[in-house]
């Protein structure tokens, strides 16, 4: 079992962080899940309306032919940064009254090798994982194949990860 005490290289799986042992409230029940479904739907709408899910927009970005994607990602980072600072400054709590925690992560070589491989895939498919789901929802049904292939890629990584440099 991946115990939360060993170091967690995954930036996105909080329940494997050491600190999660001390987390109090655990989400359960459908009402708790539905709010994330709605948040996801809002995000999906934004992704489509901003044309971030467009393969063409990604090609423009990597050819430096348009500012659009740089503007989207850059202003998203700045907005998020300001919000995180405000949360810290005013000690804003979650809906359950829990203290908000962000666990710092450490460097490993995977961020370089994995980052490059993901970059190749991003330019080919014109999609990072979020847009894959939005593209399928938008009616590009063939992208289901791309998603299944991405799941397969994740599985193969898990299978051979001990033999990869980290």
């Amino acid at each position, binding site marked *: 079992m991946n115990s939360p005490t060993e170091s967690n290289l995954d930036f996105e799986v*909080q329940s494997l962080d050491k600190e999660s042992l001390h987390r109090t409230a655990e*989400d359960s029940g459908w009402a708790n899940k*539905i709010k994330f479904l709605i948040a996801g739907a809002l995000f999906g709408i934004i992704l489509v309306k*901003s044309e971030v899910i467009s393969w063409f927009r990604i090609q423009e970005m990597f050819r430096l032919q348009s500012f659009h994607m740089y503007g*989207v990602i850059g202003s998203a980072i700045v907005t998020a940064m300001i919000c995180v600072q405000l949360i810290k400054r005013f000690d804003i709590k979650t809906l359950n009254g829990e203290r908000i925690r962000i666990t710092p992560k450490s460097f490993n070589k995977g961020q370089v090798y994995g*980052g490059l491989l993901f970059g190749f895939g991003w330019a080919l498919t014109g999609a990072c994982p979020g847009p894959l789901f939005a593209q399928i929802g938008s009616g590009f049904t*063939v992208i289901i194949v791309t998603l299944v292939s991405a799941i397969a890629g994740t*599985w193969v990584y898990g299978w051979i990860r001990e033999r990869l440099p980290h």
Partner: protein
Amino acid sequence: MLELLNKPWPWYVAGPLIGLMVPLLLILGNKTFGISSSLRHICAMCLPGSISFFDYNWRKEMWNLFFVAGILIGGFIASSFLGNSEPVQLNPLLIEELQRKGVNDFSGLMPGDLFNWKMLITLKGFILMVVGGFLVGFGTRYAGGCTSGHSIMGLSTLQWPSLVATCCFMAGGFIMANLVLPSILAL
């Protein structure tokens, strides 16, 4: 108002809205923004094998699967009811380059003549959709995050490993789009 809903949103509207997903998820339940991990949870749920990487309590991360299901629904809502009426306003240089490679469908968000079921059995389509997808899944997990987890969540919380990851995402994309993709499109 309706007009705004039916037009594509400029970067200075969409970017801040995407940025607001970070505090939204934190406040809704102390969750950090990150999407590629959903692929790991799907593996852990459906086909964990005896692989230690998938041996964890994925139920604790169920929220993430609801979030991506929401993205799919949001994509459907936006394209069915709030559809952008005009084609994407692209740089003419890109259109010219793609036309030279035989791409002629610029009407939608994706080039319909590259991304369709028939293309899947051609070498070009297989590389774009299947190999590309595999690299997205393998690479994001190897890097421990994707555009949302590293570039937005990681950078906005000032984590330098996420800056390294983001630079590598971009470097990989530049290499592929400029040096390799033209030959693939010529297949």
